[in-house]
């Protein structure tokens, strides 16, 4: 796989009193065609890192290579080939969606038709509307449209869904998935573990300016011994429950089973294939189900395990 983004021993210290070491020796390699997530809490150095990769911020030291090129020698070419959405940009309130996208389109030598770009982010109906009238989610989709309009090979998104409602977040995810399905590369930052888990092929967990874990979401979760968990309760009190547990254990997708007289918890890799078999077994053993829950271990658990802290302050407060 060719490498789309590579950075080695990246460091950034903001001068000041006291100086802030925002990034402290960070290594990353993003493969072409993947959606790569940089997951970390506020202040972890995500924005600093992504802006260095975007060529907008000079690193204190370290090396960055984008699409096999360097910013120093190939800035003009790279700018044509990447799309960027900054963490916070306030587009002009009194311009329409289509005027804004057309402006950004004009900066690129080649690219998409603005109307087509607006369609890709599902803002056709708002095309003539002033940005002032858009919702937060619509504004964010417009911001992504401005990053897409140059038809980039590589897309950088800094916290694209922060502060959005669940519906708007899913809409953004859909746009990113569609972009990736065209064989393009995405690098995004987020502090939402569910976003990294569901959207990204691979995730780097960063904390205090360093990568503390790297892998596919599943690998990361597996690394702390976590799997999908299925928990059932039954109106039995022993023998039949044990037999059911034995049957479940024989399934290849089931990693482990823990049986109690009237409850079973099992760790599985693919609940969707286990659950139908479970229902078959319940009826063949003639057992009545009284409750079923599934949950899965998350990247949050990985972060907690590695740092002893939670990803977001809110959860820390609750914990």
């Amino acid at each position, binding site marked *: 796989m060719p490498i789309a983004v590579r950075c080695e021993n990246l460091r950034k210290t903001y001068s000041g009193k006291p100086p802030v070491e925002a990034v402290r020796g960070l290594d990353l390699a993003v493969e072409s065609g993947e959606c790569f997530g940089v997951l970390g809490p506020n202040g972890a150095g995500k924005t600093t890192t992504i802006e260095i990769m*975007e060529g*907008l*911020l000079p690193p204190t030291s370290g090396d960055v290579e984008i699409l096999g090129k360097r910013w120093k020698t190939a800035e*003009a070419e790279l*700018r*044509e080939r990447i799309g*960027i959405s*900054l963490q*916070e*940009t*306030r*587009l*002009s309130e*009194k*311009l329409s969606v289509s*005027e804004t996208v*057309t*402006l*950004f*389109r*004009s*900066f*690129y*030598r*080649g*690219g*998409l*038709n603005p*109307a*087509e770009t607006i369609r890709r982010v599902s803002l056709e109906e708002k095309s003539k509307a*002033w940005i002032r009238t858009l919702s937060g989610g619509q504004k964010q989709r417009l911001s992504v449209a*401005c990053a897409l309009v*140059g*038809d980039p*090979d590589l897309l950088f998104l800094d916290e694209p869904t922060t502060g959005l409602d669940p519906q708007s977040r899913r809409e953004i995810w859909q746009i990113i998935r569609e972009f990736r399905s*065209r064989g393009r590369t995405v690098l995004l930052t987020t502090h939402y573990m569910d976003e990294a888990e569901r959207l990204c092929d691979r995730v780097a967990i960063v904390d205090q300016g360093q990568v503390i874990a790297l892998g596919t979401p599943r690998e990361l979760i597996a690394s702390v011994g976590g799997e999908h968990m299925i928990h059932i309760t039954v109106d039995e009190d022993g023998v039949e429950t044990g037999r059911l547990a034995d049957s479940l254990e024989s399934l290849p997708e089931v990693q482990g089973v823990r049986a109690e007289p009237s409850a079973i918890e099992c760790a599985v890799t693919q609940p969707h294939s286990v659950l139908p078999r479970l229902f078959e077994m319940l009826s063949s053993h003639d057992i009545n189900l009284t409750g079923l829950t599934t949950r899965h271990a998350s990247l949050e658990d990985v972060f907690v395990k590695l740092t002893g802290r939670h990803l977001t302050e809110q959860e820390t407060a609750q914990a």
Partner: protein
Amino acid sequence: MNQLHTPSPKTRRYSPLREMVLVRLREFYREPEAVFWVYGFPVIMMAALGIAFRDRPIEKISVDVQAGSDAEQVVEVLSQEEVFEVAVHNEAVCRRRLRIGRSDLFVEVDGSSPRFRYHFDPTKPGSLVARNAVNDVLQRDSGREDAVAVENVEKQEPGGRYIDFLVPGLLGMGLMGGGLWGIGFVTVDLRIRRLLKRFLATPMRKTDFLAGLMISRMAFMVPEVLTMLFFGWLVFGVKIEGSLLLLTALILLGATMFAGIGLLVASRARTLEAVSGIMNLVMLPMWVMSGIFFSTDRFPDAAQPFIQALPLTALNDALRAVMLEGSGPMVIAAECMLMLAWAAGSFLLALKWFRWDN
């Protein structure tokens, strides 16, 4: 790869410069307050000042005649001249009115020699004029003949009125405000909204961005200047004596210069408060000293080198020379060189210091 993902077969060429200018124009005209401040304000100012300082009818000369024998006859003679406002009072009242400036002089009618005694204060402006005017009339009435025939040709020179002085000054002031606000404020606003940085993240050429700002500024300026000149001509009859081409070139030069200064002022500011503060600091001395409302001659000689070096002084002087005196390019060459220097210097420094990020 790009063609593959461009579904529309229509190939359209996009000009970043054109889009940049269009966007600035749209943003401006969709902001009614801004439109008012740029176009309405100078006209209102011109109307208010033009009315306040309009030329008054010829002032009357107030003459008192001290009560006594023959006073009636003197009053009758003087009253035939419209310019006099004549009243009869006793001596004490006459003296008091003279002292407090209610009359310009009073006439004491005496015996035969001297027949009249004029009381006035020669240090007060106009008192000598009053004395001579009264004397002329009374002497002629007593039989004096003029030695030679004379004729008075009274004419008000257009171009010499206060409003004529004011219109070029307001034009210069408008170009200064428009350049500083139109470029400086807009630039800092874009920086605060992180749009400058967002633009930098695209292949946009910086020259396109700056040229877009400049061209849109020039486009806003055209109606602004035309409104002022048209209003000045329509309401106050202010005419342009010199070449229209030269005036246009001068206005463009002035606008460019102030756009450069605006860019310089905005080159590093991170907040609107900061840029407003610097702009006011830059504009204040010019509002007061660069001859918008009154001539720069009113300031002491020691201050003149500073005043003459100010960009707005040069622009106002050149505008007045062309508009009021019909001067040619050679007459205003020095002012133009100074403005060119300001423009070049501020652009160079602005580009050197310019901060895209906040």
